[in-house]
């Protein structure tokens, strides 16, 4: 591995590319050649740094960590001379390092503990040497030389690691099932079909630390006897697909994949399969159907994948995050991992925070932390200092939990008992301006759309629920709707074939339980308390506050607003479509929703 005294990371974010990032890289490289610095300074591509709307192209020089911005080609010779020959900062192009922002992954907050995300953002993802320098593939070496497959499984079992895809099944046990299954060909599959809206932790791991997933899978293959592996990644993540493909190629080139890995006699081949946009493919049996080239429809279990999985052969599926943490468990020991966390949920979990919270993005916390700590301490509280209303955990099959649950210690069991799920770690925070009936309708729209159509309770049941919720939001709700909804929720949950169907009613069930008053306001009083449901609200201009600036009238898509310049305007309720654009735009808060 060559050593460079400096590394230059050039942002190749799409916007920076448009601003000439590649040309800049070329010029920089040329200048380094000219000055005889090519062996000392390495130029690398990186994802977005800084804000490409206002700056760019951007680059960072390490180890100093100096952020240069707004660069053009003619600046390069001067910059190279100052930075790399004279060894001082070219101050006119530099900006404060604090301004570098990664909107998805900021510096860890006090209550965070990063294991999975630890090296993301600091390690060059597609440099296998750099991964190795961070103890990468050491765990693989350890299991191959010092541990039997059974000992490896026991170590994972002792760590208490449970499936990070959401179901929370002990990983070691799953591996043991596959090891004990009879069959000549066994498969090890990585579920990278992170379809839950609002969850993007897997994407960041695949893009930022792909070799940890590859290593985890090889260790799994050794422990279980699988000789062929697949990473099934959703097509909505083109960069992740590219990164993991390249990482696999690199591992193969150095003999970490293929035949006789590290001289141990272990054979394991790994391939990437891409989804094509179907949420249900995150369900393990549907995922396997999709790898086989079929419609992604779930199959009834049993037989479980460990007996009859991919092409009828024994198979094991784990999530990206699960595989990614395996090498560290092997290296640091089961006890280290088991000591982190809470009760039966050991270790840490990543959460993707989105919605009305100040710091959106990825976080990683030990199990046992409360929702309040996550939202207020790590997340910085609610945006615009509004009031918290609910948090939806675990993606579209999770429930919406109100304030009363904020002090619940987070683990698989606690969330389950609260009527929600941990799922893949999506957290959508909602403030007081959110209508819970509308949100429930919104989630049903999603599951109804994504229902694969194979079993009746899910296919027809979700549609019936959606119809009723839509009617309620339109002000046409009937008193009998509430018991009907409850009944439908129960039937769908009990009778659906797969987890998607079983979990589909959760958003409705939980909102019915915790926010029944909002349903009742919609049905009995034809009123939307959060002022969201279009049919139940109308917009008015408060005469005293309106300055007649005409901004609303100019932006109204249906020309429903009229009035003379500098005179109070009026909204014609017959034309208004309640789009809310005027209310958003008005600089004087003169638009009122009633």
């Amino acid at each position: 591995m060559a050593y460079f005294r400096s590394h230059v990371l050039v942002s190749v974010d799409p916007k920076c590319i448009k601003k000439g990032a590649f040309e800049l890289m070329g010029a920089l490289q040329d200048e380094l050649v000219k000055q005889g610095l090519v062996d000392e300074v390495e130029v690398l591509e990186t994802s977005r740094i800084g804000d490409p709307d206002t700056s760019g192209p951007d680059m960072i020089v390490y180890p100093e960590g100096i952020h240069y911005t707004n660069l053009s080609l003619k600046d390069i010779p001067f910059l190279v001379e100052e930075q790399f020959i004279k060894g001082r900062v070219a101050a006119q192009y530099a900006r404060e390092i604090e301004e570098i922002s990664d909107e998805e992954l900021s510096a860890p907050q006090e209550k965070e503990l990063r294991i999975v995300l630890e090296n993301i953002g600091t390690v060059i993802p597609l440099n296998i040497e750099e991964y190795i320098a961070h103890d990468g593939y050491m765990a693989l070496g350890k299991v191959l030389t010092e541990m039997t497959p059974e000992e490896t499984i026991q170590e994972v079992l002792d760590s208490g690691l449970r499936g990070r895809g959401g179901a929370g099944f002990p990983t070691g046990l799953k591996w043991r099932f596959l090891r004990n299954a009879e069959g000549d060909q066994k498969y090890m599959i990585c579920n990278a079909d992170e379809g839950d809206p609002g969850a993007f932790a897997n994407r960041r791991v695949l893009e930022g630390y792909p070799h940890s997933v590859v290593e985890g899978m090889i260790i799994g293959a050794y422990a279980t006897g699988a000789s062929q592996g697949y990473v099934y990644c959703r097509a909505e993540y083109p960069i992740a697909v590219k990164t993991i493909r390249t990482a696999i190629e690199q591992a193969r080139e150095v003999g970490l994949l293929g035949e006789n890995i590290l001289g141990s006699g272990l054979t394991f081949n790994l391939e990437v399969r891409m989804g094509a946009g179907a949420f249900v493919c995150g369900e393990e049996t549907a995922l396997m159907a999709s790898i086989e080239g079929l419609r992604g429809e779930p199959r009834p279990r049993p037989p479980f994948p460990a007996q009859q999985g991919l092409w009828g052969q024994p198979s094991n599926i784990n999530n990206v995050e699960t595989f990614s943490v395996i090498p560290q468990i092997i290296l640091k020991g089961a006890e280290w991992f088991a000591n982190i966390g809470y009760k039966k949920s050991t270790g840490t979990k990543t959460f993707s925070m989105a919605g009305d919270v100040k710091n959106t993005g990825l976080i990683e916390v030990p199990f046992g932390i409360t929702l309040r700590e996550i939202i207020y301490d790590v997340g910085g509280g609610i945006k615009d200092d509004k009031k918290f209303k609910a948090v939806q955990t675990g993606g579209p099959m999770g429930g919406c939990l109100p304030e009363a649950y904020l002090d619940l210690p987070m683990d698989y069991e606690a969330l389950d008992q609260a009527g929600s799920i941990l799922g893949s770690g999506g957290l959508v925070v909602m403030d007081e301006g959110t209508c819970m009936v509308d949100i429930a309708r919104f989630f049903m729209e999603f599951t109804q759309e994504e229902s694969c159509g194979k079993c009746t309770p899910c296919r027809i049941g979700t549609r019936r629920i959606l119809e009723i919720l839509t009617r309620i939001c339109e002000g046409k709700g009937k008193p009998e709707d509430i018991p009907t909804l409850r009944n439908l929720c129960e039937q769908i949950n009990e009778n659906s074939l797969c987890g998607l169907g079983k979990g589909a009613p959760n958003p409705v069930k939980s909102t019915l339980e915790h926010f029944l008053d909002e349903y009742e306001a919609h049905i009995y009083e034809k009123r939307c308390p959060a002022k969201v449901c279009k049919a139940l609200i109308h917009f008015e201009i408060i005469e005293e506050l309106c300055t007649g600036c005409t901004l609303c009238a100019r932006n109204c898509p249906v020309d429903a607003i009229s009035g003379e310049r500098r005179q109070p305007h009026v909204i014609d309720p017959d034309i208004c479509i309640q789009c809310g654009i005027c209310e958003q735009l008005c600089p004087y808060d003169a638009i009122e929703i009633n």
Partner: protein
Amino acid sequence: MKVEVKEGTEVRKMVRTLVEEKGSEKAELIPILHDINGELGYISDVAIQELSELMNIPTSHIYSVATFYRMLSTDPRGRHVIQFCESAPCHVAGGRVVWQKLQQELGLSNGETSEDEKWTLLTTSCLGVCGVGPVMVVDHDIYGNVTPEQVPDILSNYD
């Protein structure tokens, strides 16, 4: 995404090359359909017939797979495909007004293609860039933190 109209023979030739490259195992069906969709902008009847013969898979099966997955289309699409994220994080971050503006600006509803074949408007499932919602994608360009006022500007980048 530049899509050129290809003649039937050309389409058949392209499909043949793809099958030769990837093999005719059933497991290759979805990757091949992906590539056809990328090349043509959609999966045409001719392509389905040719695939059926080469891979020895009934056209009914290919059609059922092609219509199951959201990213595969059996209908022709416009020169530029706009995908708007309809997921909850974008929804609560103000996605709804952006979606309205987008529909109104283009005069299209979800799934429609404009008469001049310039635009196809689609909703997409979560793209996993929820930190910058609302998010829209035009061809391969991702736009985050989109507001209704920005919509006309974004659209004017494409011809």
